[in-house]
Structures are given as structure tokens and as C-alpha cells.
């Protein structure tokens, strides 16, 4: 008698715990918004990507407007880099292939060695990678502008350092930018599972816009 009672109590506690945990995980959390935020009146102003203007592998001018109503993934690299960039490009190619038929998603790779990486070189590079320009923009431009946007808009490290094997220090980060030009995720572009997380987060971000 006593035994069955304590057993049923045990069962109740257990099922309560199960309910609690499933309730906890059920509503998928929205992705975080990176950077500082300011409250202005009743509005929250989030950190967004500052205005920029670069040139891509087809000599097209690329600005914030290129990514209007688009989700995009950004990174920083240079064509002659032998350390992490080839791995990053292999991983970005995975993102490219996964999202090739998704018009909402674009890719943007900035050269941090823009003097060497001319439009012609980037054109050759993208061609050899076999990717379409309208999906994946490789941009070059004013060096100061690229470094500044890397650091202050994308929070990515990019700088020249002659003591490094490639002559530059830069992060292998991929940054997920939403349709409002806000950073919603940061991933290690050299790691398979982090890039899987990115692919998953892109879908989560799309759902966020569908719900609106």
C-alpha cells in the first residue's frame, strides 16, 4: 500500500519534470542581436552595418542596398592566403551550395588585401571556384574602408602584420546579417559543425521574418 503510494508520487514528480523541461525547450529562442543598443523613446536602436561601397568581381558597385531584404553571410579573406582562407572558402562553398536556390540568402566576401586582389583577380578567383556573381560577391575597395568596416561594423579582426606567415591577422569568422543589417550570429568559418550551426540559424532567421 505504502509502496504504491510513494511510487505514484514519484511518477507525478517525474512527469512534472518532463513537462517542465519540454516547456522550456519548446519555443525556439530567436537569435541574439549583436552589438550595442540605444533606447530612443519607445524604440530600441540596434547596432547595424555602417554604409559602405565596394566593387565586386564583375565590377558592380556593392552597397548596403545590394542586400536590401536579404539575409547575408559575410567574411574577410584574401586570395593569396594559404592559412585559414582556403578552409573558409571550402566551408563558404558549402553554404553557397546549400542556399543556392534560396533567393533570400546572399554571400559577401571582403578582400583584406585589396591592393593585390584586384577586380580581375577576384573575377578569376570566383570563376575558378565556379560560383555565380549574383549569389556570392567578392569585393575589393579602399583598404582603410574595408578594415574599418571589419572592425567597427562586423566586429571581425583584420589588420596587416608583417610578422604573420601571410602578412595579415584576420579572424576566420562568418557573420550572419539579417534583413535589417544587424549581426545575428558569429561562426568559426574553419569548423564544420559551426558552419552547420550557421546553416541552421539561417533557417531560424527566415522563420522570424515569416512570422511577421
Amino acid at each position: 500500500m505504502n509502496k504504491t503510494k510513494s511510487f505514484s508520487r514519484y511518477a507525478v514528480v517525474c512527469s512534472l519534470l518532463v513537462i517542465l523541461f519540454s516547456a522550456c525547450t519548446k519555443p525556439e529562442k530567436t537569435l541574439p542581436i549583436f552589438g550595442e543598443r540605444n533606447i530612443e523613446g519607445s524604440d530600441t536602436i540596434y547596432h547595424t552595418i555602417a554604409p559602405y561601397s565596394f566593387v565586386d568581381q564583375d565590377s558592380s558597385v556593392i552597397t548596403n542596398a545590394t542586400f536590401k531584404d536579404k539575409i547575408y553571410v559575410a567574411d574577410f579573406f584574401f586570395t593569396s592566403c594559404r592559412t585559414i582562407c582556403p578552409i573558409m572558402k571550402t566551408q563558404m562553398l558549402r553554404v553557397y551550395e546549400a542556399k543556392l536556390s534560396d533567393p533570400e540568402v546572399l554571400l559577401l566576401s571582403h578582400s583584406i588585401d585589396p591592393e593585390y586582389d584586384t577586380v580581375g583577380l577576384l573575377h578569376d578567383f570566383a570563376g575558378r571556384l565556379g560560383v555565380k556573381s549574383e549569389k556570392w560577391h567578392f569585393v575589393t575597395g579602399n583598404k582603410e574602408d574595408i578594415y574599418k568596416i571589419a572592425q567597427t561594423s562586423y566586429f571581425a579582426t583584420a589588420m596587416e602584420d608583417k610578422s604573420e606567415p601571410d602578412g595579415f591577422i584576420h579572424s576566420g569568422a562568418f557573420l550572419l546579417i539579417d534583413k535589417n543589417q544587424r549581426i545575428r550570429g558569429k561562426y568559426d568559418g574553419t569548423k564544420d559543425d559551426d558552419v552547420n550551426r550557421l546553416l541552421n540559424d539561417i533557417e531560424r532567421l527566415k522563420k522570424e521574418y515569416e512570422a511577421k
Partner: protein
Amino acid sequence: MKQNKHRFINLNSKLIALLLFILFSNCSRNSEATRFTSEIKFRQYYVQGQLLYEQHCSNCHQKDGSGLGLLYPPLNHSDYMDQNFEKVICMMKYGIKGELVINGKSYNKEMPGVLSLSDLEVTEIATYIYNTWSHQKDSIDISGITRILNQCSQQ
């Protein structure tokens, strides 16, 4: 003194005769032993070579040797590798640029060399890439690699 030397030579030749006798009587077993040690050496080179490949080469050519688009050529199947052993040895250390045609496709990006590689390390990487995927070149001797490397550095 002179006598001493004489005795020494005498002893020496006796010793040599004995050694030769042992050697010949052991001949068959001996070649097996050499085969065994060279097999061990091959294994060692191969394992080290794989580590070095993953450290210095797989960024571009990928772990599975498949390369990346027309940027980085494949090593898993490469008629170029089959036909240009010496050039491949040189490019690991000194790099290469200009157009290369691999399996009928044109590649033209600079491959940076790794100057810090020792002759042994180049031998190890060569052992790995020439005995993996579609390649079966068998053991590679370090003295041959040193000779090739000496020639390319003079170019």
C-alpha cells in the same frame, strides 16, 4: 710495434672471414630483416607524412586530396603527379606559379612553398601523397629526395 700491427691485421682478416661466413649463412634471413626494417621505415614515413600533409597542404588540396574547384588542383587523381615526380618534390619546398594542366584542366594560381621543410619531411610527405588515393609508388628513399632538392634549389 711492427709485430703488433701484423698480428692485428691477421686478427682482423680472421674476423672478417668469420663475419662473411655468418653473413652468408644468414643470407636468406637477412634480406627478410631488411625488408622488415624498410617496411617499418615506410610506415613511419607514411604516418609522419600524413600529419605534415594535414599541416601544410590539406588547407588547399583538402584532406581527401580532391582540391577545390579550379583553384586548387586535385592530388587524389592527377596525371601531373604521375608524370612529374621531381617537379612535385621541388614545389613542396619552393612553390610553383604559372599555368599547370592537370587531368586536362588548366590551373593557374600560385602555390606557396614551405621553405622550412627538411629533406626528411619532404620524403615523408612524398611517401604519403604518392601512396594514398589512387597512387601506389611504394617506399621513397631520402637520398633520392636530397638529390632532387639540391638540383631544384640551384635553378
